[in-house]
């Protein structure tokens, strides 16, 4: 349970930016139709790359908080990006059906 809370704590550091991008992709889907799906996915994947780079330089010291909880960086990134991508996909699917 504490490990999950720690992963959530890590996710919170970049979640607002990621959710904002998801919201923008949903808006784009409303405005331009379902053909924007692939562009939105590409945009989302690129955003993960930038988030990773920015976090790696700006939050490098805080990573030791998670290392001391015996959480490897790979687990943190994978768990957060997968969860975020799931949220993104669900939002896009719901927007497509509306």
């Amino acid at each position, binding site marked *: 349970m504490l490990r999950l809370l720690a992963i959530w704590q890590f996710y919170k550091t970049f979640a607002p930016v990621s959710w904002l991008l998801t919201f923008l992709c949903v808006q784009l889907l409303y405005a331009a139709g379902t053909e924007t799906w692939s562009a939105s996915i590409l945009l989302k994947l690129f955003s993960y790359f930038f988030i990773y780079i920015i976090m790696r330089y700006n939050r490098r010291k805080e*990573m030791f908080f998670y290392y001391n909880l015996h959480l490897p960086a790979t687990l943190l990134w994978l768990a957060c990006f997968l969860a975020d991508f799931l949220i993104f996909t669900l939002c896009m699917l719901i927007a497509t059906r509306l």
Partner: protein
Amino acid sequence: MSHTLEIDGVQLQFGHRPILSDVYVRCDTGSITGLLGRNGSGKSCFMQVAFGTMQAYTRSVRCDGKHIRRAYTVPRLLNYLPQFHFIPAGMRVSAALKYYGITPKTLLAHFQEYEPDMDKTMEELSGGQRRMIELSIILLADTKFSILDEPFTHIMPLHVESIMALMQTIKHRKGIIVTDHMYKHILQVSDTLYLLNNGKTHLISHPDQLVHYGYVSHIFNE
């Protein structure tokens, strides 16, 4: 139960500059292992290699003779106090304690003065207070070993004494590896002492050897 942590065979270099080449450090439950060395001698690198967060060309980290690839990923094996603040600035002290399975009561049993700070965020504390909280968390957390990189930096003398007393208490259930430039504190608190010089570790059995290796010009006897 007693455990042994051994680190050796570390080959680390930055570009063409060798940092670590011939090191051996051993730490047992019930003992404090001190590590001294000049600035840039590779103490912090050595600690991060031991912790598993820094890659070295070769290295061998063993707990009770069993080889460990990345020590920090093994639950309850060891934790590490870096030189910098590592707990997120916006996190409350009580929340940070909870993550590491430490009750506020346990911390307050050692440092009563932090009672009013329990609900403060880390950024609301002074640098020294923040360091004290982080150091206490590392020491009180349930691990077999703790590695402390410059634990006495930014801490007032009264608290240095408290921390040294806490280390003496805690060492009965975990092994501690500690480095700091306040060598007198390290001499005072360590059961085993190593000097890192030119990428090699030297077991120090008498403080005069520190003069011999050029770490200090002379030893003050108080």
